[in-house]
């Protein structure tokens, strides 16, 4: 007669065998194993988001009775909100003079097609970065922050001056344009 074993009966046979090693391990000394959990945070910088439209619009640059550069030129500051660098960083500020985009020829005697100004960027470093478009060198344009940081960068412009001298008048042009560039970089 052939013996038939049901699955339930097979399980009952195997179970006592499986318990044996567990009983034997419980009788040994405690053993530990370390598993390292690792990750990296890359050095990175982000410029944040701009407040407003990001353009310094000065409007009419000249006194319309004299043709000379206005002495009350001003534009609201721009804020780069939530800028951050995850490590030591460099803030560099650069700017180009405002120049007449339509009148591209050399301005005739007594006239200029250039407006210089000074741009500043503060809030990131102890000393604000500044850039004078009339200067041949701008040693304060680059500032270093020694630690990781997140915050706002306030960018402003001022100290407007007619290129070539304040006695010169600006040539008529509906579009004078310059550019301020703020760059955050991971420092070496």
């Amino acid at each position, binding site marked *: 007669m052939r013996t038939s074993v049901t699955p339930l009966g097979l399980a009952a046979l195997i179970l006592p065998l499986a318990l044996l090693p567990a009983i034997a391990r419980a009788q040994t000394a405690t053993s530990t194993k370390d598993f390292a959990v690792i990750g990296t945070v890359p050095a990175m*910088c982000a410029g944040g988001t701009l407040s407003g439209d990001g353009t310094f619009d000065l409007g009419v640059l000249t006194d319309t009775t004299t043709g000379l550069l206005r002495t009350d030129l001003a*534009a609201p500051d721009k804020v780069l909100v939530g800028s951050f660098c995850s490590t030591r960083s460099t803030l560099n500020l650069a700017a180009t003079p405002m120049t007449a985009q339509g009148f591209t020829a050399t301005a*005739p005697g007594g*006239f200029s097609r250039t407006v210089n100004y000074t741009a500043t960027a503060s809030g990131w470093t102890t000393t604000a970065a500044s850039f004078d478009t009339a200067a041949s060198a701008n040693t304060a344009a680059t500032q270093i922050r020694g630690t990781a940081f997140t915050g706002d960068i306030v960018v402003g412009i001022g100290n407007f001056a007619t290129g070539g001298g304040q006695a010169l008048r*600006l040539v008529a042009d509906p579009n004078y344009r310059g*550019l*301020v560039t703020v760059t955050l*970089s991971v420092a070496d």
Partner: protein
Amino acid sequence: MGQAPSPRSTIAALAALGMATSAAAQSAAPATTASRDLPVTGSAPQVCALQDGQIQPGGLINIAGTSGASLQIEQFVDPQTLAARAASATVDFTAVCNFPHTMRIESQGNGLWPTDGRISGPLQGFAYAVPYTAVVNWGGSNATLTADGKVRQIVQQSFAIDQPAQGTLSLRVEIAEGASNVENRAPVMAGAYADTLRIFLEPR
């Protein structure tokens, strides 16, 4: 049972995979530099400005001076002949135009005409208007306006300046000895005579 991909579709799939891998690698790379550009804009509208005139001492003949914006002739006629006396003056204006423009000078009457309405027309042998010339120098160009007194009307001269200009606009007004709108050295009818000169700096 699935259909085996053709060689062409396999290559296409591999290429697509390669692109996806490359894009993933780029997006994963940390940005070590962040930069923002902030434009600075403005405009300089077209402006012409002409300041009050200053009479120049050099070349001043028979002119008493200026009264406001008027040029006063000291002795308009010779008391013996009643013919017009020579008179001349130069008036300088500080001026500026910051764009290419036109200078235009205009005489309202085409000569010096009586301001008194009682003198209504010509009288044989008498001058009833006094001609003169006006020369303008501006921006390296000049124009001569001849107001001959023949017909009372507006006359003008103009010239174009191809670039912005600033400095002195010089106006020279000259009445010749014996000037007359009829015969030369004709006696001038009694009365007060005047004309209005207008100088325009305007867009072309």
